[in-house]
């Protein structure tokens, strides 16, 4: 298979400017600035079928097309590199290996959107990726790919790197804009949508690191080629998947979208740890509902995963073996969200600690039969929150109820954890 983002064998050092250029790096940018109008570049991205890799899977070119072209005043592009969704480490691996794809992708996206000022919002703790980016931005500027009048095209762009101080909610796009403005990072209400009124009130696009890193190859090789990379015709392109949990190979790999879960588990993930059997997994990061052995044939791409009752999310696949108590796993996930709640709205601020409490008593053998109904109601109630954090937190709870109700019931009846004891 052909890989765009991560080669199979990766040297320890990040790709250098010279190596990147030798492998047709910046060819897409040169061609776009010389031959293509911003709208033509946007059309190629629309035709490619590229969907956002940050979690929601929104079509990238379509998102760009929502930005009005005639509003006066500055407009902004933000690269979301906050990556705090548990299980997810793809953007870090990508930036440790090759920061150039993002730099070139950002410049191309800024060209489409007529943005002259872009930001990379990166989490704290990603020191190597941040350092790689600082160096790459400086080198790109020296080479004339950034700054005033890029390659004589009249187009100018400045990219600033913002290093955060750690808080999951900063990854939500409107909270991120508050964070960048130096405000408390609570989400903003939508509408107005960022495409109309975002950072400092200007039209703003937020895209994930992996999304933007795909753009140069799409422009260079064309939309049909990109669509053809996927394993099934309904999907387009490759995707980074990162494995963790009880599998032999806990690695980040680039695979065609639509590769089935079973192919992933037995192939690149190397199977479960010796002597262990597959009980469940989280298919797309902490906010997605569980998959079970029934789902091994599901093609891992946005629509198929949604049809099977979960979400592809960030592509972080976390595998659990038969020794894992699913109530305890869900409790861990809900505890993460309860702690990371930004506190802005009541369903999330009050509801998540309550759900954590209910799961704790079930896990400790103090649960009552009506707790199952209480959990079910809260999956509904928490969808009335201000932003997607709380509904995301209830993704695994929903999965627990749908696939492991028997296991919950056993906890309640036996008054202890039946898996770990």
């Amino acid at each position, binding site marked *: 298979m052909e890989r765009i983002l991560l080669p199979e064998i990766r040297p320890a050092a990040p790709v250098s400017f010279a190596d990147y250029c030798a492998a047709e790096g910046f060819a897409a940018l040169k061609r776009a600035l010389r031959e293509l109008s911003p709208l033509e570049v946007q059309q190629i991205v629309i035709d490619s079928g590229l969907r956002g890799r940050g979690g929601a899977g929104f079509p990238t070119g379509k998102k760009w097309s929502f930005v009005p072209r005639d509003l006066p005043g500055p407009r902004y592009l933000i690269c979301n590199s906050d990556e705090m969704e548990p299980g997810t*480490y793809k953007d870090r691996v990508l930036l440790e290996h090759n920061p150039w794809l993002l730099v070139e992708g950002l410049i191309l996206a800024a060209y489409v959107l007529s943005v002259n000022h872009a930001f990379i919002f990166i989490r704290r703790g990603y020191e190597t990726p941040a350092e790689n980016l600082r160096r790459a931005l400086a080198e790109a500027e020296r080479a004339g790919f950034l700054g005033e009048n890029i390659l004589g095209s009249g187009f100018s762009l400045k990219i600033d790197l913002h290093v955060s101080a750690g*808080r999951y909610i900063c990854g939500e796009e409107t909270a991120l804009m508050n964070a960048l403005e*130096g*405000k*408390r990072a609570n989400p903003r209400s939508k509408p107005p949508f960022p495409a109309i009124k975002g950072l400092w009130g200007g039209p703003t696009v937020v895209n994930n690191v992996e999304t933007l890193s795909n753009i140069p190859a799409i422009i260079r090789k064309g939309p049909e080629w990109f669509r053809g990379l996927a394993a099934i015709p309904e999907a387009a392109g490759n995707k980074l998947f990162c494995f963790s949990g009880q599998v032999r190979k*806990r690695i980040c790999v680039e695979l065609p979208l639509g590769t089935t879960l079973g192919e992933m588990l037995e192939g690149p993930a190397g199977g479960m740890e010796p002597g262990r059997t597959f009980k469940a997994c989280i298919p797309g990061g902490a906010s997605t509902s569980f998959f079970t052995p029934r789902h091994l044939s599901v093609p891992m791409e946005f629509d198929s995963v949604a049809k099977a009752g979960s979400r592809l999310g960030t592509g972080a696949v976390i595998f659990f073996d038969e020794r894992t108590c699913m109530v305890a796993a869900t409790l861990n996930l809900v505890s993460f969200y309860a702690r990371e709640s930004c506190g802005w709205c009541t369903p999330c601020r009050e509801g998540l600690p309550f759900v954590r409490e209910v799961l704790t008593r079930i896990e400790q053998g103090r649960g009552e039969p009506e707790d199952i109904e209480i959990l079910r109601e809260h999956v509904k109630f928490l969808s009335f929150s201000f932003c997607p954090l709380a509904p995301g937190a209830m993704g695994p709870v929903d999965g627990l109820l749908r696939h492991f109700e028997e296991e919950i019931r056993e906890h309640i009846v036996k008054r202890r954890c039946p898996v770990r004891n």
Partner: protein
Amino acid sequence: MIPESLKNELKARVAAALTNREAAVDVMKELQSHCGWLSDEAVVAAAEILGLSTLQVEELATFYELIYRRPVGKRVIHVCDSISCWSCGCDAILAYLRQNLGVEPGGTSADGCFTLVPCACLGNCGEGPTMMIGDTLYGRLTEERVAEILEAERKALASSNSSN
């Protein structure tokens, strides 16, 4: 005491930003690395540098995981307790750290060297269990490896004390 030179350096950074608030996180981080934590004095200084009220600074300072509004040890140990690390035994690592350092989560060891803080995913999920000390990530932790890392950190702290 926060030196005037640092204040002036930070004022210059604020002046270069689009709005004064934009540099707030950077200013808090710099002051914290000077003081060890974001002390009351640092909050007042940040407010002055940023042209904000102390309340506005407080509202930001209490939001972030890596801004410390209470005194901490010389090194803060952030141990990931999110799902991937949980699935490979972070509970045991956290228990070992509590015992080794003689502290509860959030506490500082009696010798003032370490503060122990459980934290959200550190983006090192394939290499769990994971912890971060300063800017350094440590993965694939076992009790033995944690003991070695603490020993090395203690030595480094001792030698930086004696050279001061």
